[in-house]
């Protein structure tokens, strides 16, 4: 397949644009998604110019109605791709997401569905403080009916975006700000990546590292360091949290017997807990040592860069966790 180098951000935008060309019911909405605002939003990127204000809809600062209106539009026939400028604002629209979008299909016995994508930019990158830095995927993971996608590469950003837009269920699509400008080869055309299929990003035999989004490159970095110390780590990029590719995790643990999960979200009840719990149940007999989680500590995200650098898990911390079970 033809491909070209592009950034994660451009690749996601290409995915959206392709779907908009293919399907007239796909539209975007959110704060600063239109022409002027692209300096701020994650989306846009040429999309506005091509499609105009009917299909790329700038909204007031009303996260509740951004998500809430999307539920109604999706139920009757549109495919909204709406966005939160920061994932930190999820609490403002959690009712619409959890009580309306996610429940609609089950509760109405299949009469309605909510095919919508909620794009959220996540992560602590530039020092932006406690309200502009969070990774809150765990909240969504505890809501039956949602899907959660968190790509780590440009190609996946495109391929998973297209799949998410075509999915008939509400999808929370997480774009980590540290990844937006990262480049990669991206297949041209109608390129899709299925949800629920993890990728073994690096094969290894001594320990399994499970991650998603920006923690994947961090795990690869850790794996590199570990290799130098003679420890051969396998790195699994989940790509989607819900559906979760249990098989990929369990078969890797079957090989390595050791599991370390890394995420940028705070520790307690982060999605790492679910993975650990799943393996401690379904993969217990495969385990040779304790399951470690490498996460942000249980605090609000501090603003000062001097503190922030200790907040976000890094390769050294992942390496150190692996060492404790090696």
């Amino acid at each position, binding site marked *: 397949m033809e491909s070209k180098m592009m950034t994660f951000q451009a690749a996601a935008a290409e995915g959206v644009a392709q779907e908009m060309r293919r399907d007239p019911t796909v539209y975007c909405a959110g704060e600063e998604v239109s022409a002027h605002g692209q300096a701020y939003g994650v989306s846009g990127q040429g999309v506005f110019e091509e499609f105009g204000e009917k299909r790329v809809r700038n909204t*007031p600062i009303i996260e509740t*109605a951004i998500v809430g*209106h999307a539920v*109604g*539009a999706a139920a*009757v026939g*549109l495919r909204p791709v709406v966005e939160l400028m920061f994932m930190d604002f999820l609490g403002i629209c959690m009712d619409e997401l959890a*009580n309306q979008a996610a429940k609609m299909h*089950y509760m*109405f016995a299949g009469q309605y569905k909510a095919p919508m994508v909620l794009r959220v930019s996540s992560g602590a990158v530039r020092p932006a403080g406690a309200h502009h830095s969070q990774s809150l995927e765990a909240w969504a993971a505890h809501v039956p009916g949602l899907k959660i996608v968190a790509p780590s590469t440009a190609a996946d950003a495109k391929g998973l975006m297209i799949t998410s837009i075509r999915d008939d269920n509400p999808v929370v699509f997480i774009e980590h700000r540290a990844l937006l400008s990262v480049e990669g080869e991206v297949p041209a055309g109608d390129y899709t990546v299925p949800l629920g299929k993890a990728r073994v990003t690096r094969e290894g035999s001594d320990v399994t590292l499970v991650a998603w989004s920006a923690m994947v490159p961090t795990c690869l970095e850790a794996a590199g360091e570990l290799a130098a110390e003679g420890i051969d780590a396998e790195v699994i990029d989940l790509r989607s949290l819900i559906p979760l590719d249990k098989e990929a995790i369990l078969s890797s643990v079957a090989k390595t017997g050791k599991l370390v999960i890394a995420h940028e979200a705070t520790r307690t009840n982060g999605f790492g807990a679910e993975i650990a719990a799943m393996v401690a149940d379904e993969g217990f007999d495969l385990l040779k040592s304790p399951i470690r989680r490498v996460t942000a500590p249980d605090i609000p995200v501090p603003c000062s860069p001097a503190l922030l650098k200790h907040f976000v898990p890094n390769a050294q911390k992942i390496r150190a966790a692996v060492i404790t079970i090696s």
Partner: protein
Amino acid sequence: MGATGLDLLGMYRCMVRIRTFEEHILTEWRAGEVPGEVHLYSGEEAVAAGVIANLRVDDYVVSTHRGHGHVLAKGGDPARMMAEVFGRTGGYCRGKGGTMHMADATLGILGTNGIVGASLPIATGVGLYCQYMATDRVSVCFFGDGASNRGTFHESLDLASIWKLPVIYVCENNYYGMATSVEEHMNINDIAERAASYGIPGVVVDGNDVVAVHDAAAEAIIRARSGGGTTLIECKTWRHHGHFTADPAYYRDPDVHNEHLQRDPIIRCGALLLSQGLATKEALDAVHNEAIAEMNAAVEFSKNSPWPEEDELLVGLYAE
């Protein structure tokens, strides 16, 4: 506009069917046949009947916890509604939804809803669909006086007003949210005044007068169909029962309550039909009798409808 030219008898029938449906539920609830609580619409029938009389089958309605009236008026099948309230597989949602989560996608009914104020953003998005697809359909959003204080009200009307969406927000002001009176929960008299915050028309109507409701809604809906945008209509009405089936509603002054009961929308409409010679006493009686027969059948259907089995539990989380 007066009663002439209107299908007043049709609206009368609609109201009687709603009332009869609700009273049957109350009877069954008292007999222990209905699981859980139900929010009855009795007394407020003129709102659903008057507004929805203006709608086509391809228009949309987004409803509330007190939503049976909206569903019935939009064409909902009382047997499937009742069975849903009873928690049976014959119900609209095979019992999964219940009274507060009852939908009919074929009729554009986006469901009753358990979250007060949730109807507003949903209806806004439905309105966007109507406009986006270049239809002349409209989205009608019902909500209560209590719901009008929620943030969703503000954000939805803001969005609909700037996007000029064909949404008619219909506030059913029955003077109470549970035991809390309008005077306690807001500092103004007319919720319709809030339309000014969004630069859209706001209208107060006597919500017990089905003709007045019909006419106000007609104006708003015609405007919306032709690209004229959003309207807020406040219908002042009264619920005949407590907040839900178990509520004796002691908090309402009995004198005030009785006064309001005098304005029963069905009685008023009946009197109008008779006085204008649009129907005979016998015709009206027939409407009642038919409704009773229909709702008896709905109860019968519901009681005989099977309970869902355990193997249905995990069916349908995701759309495939």
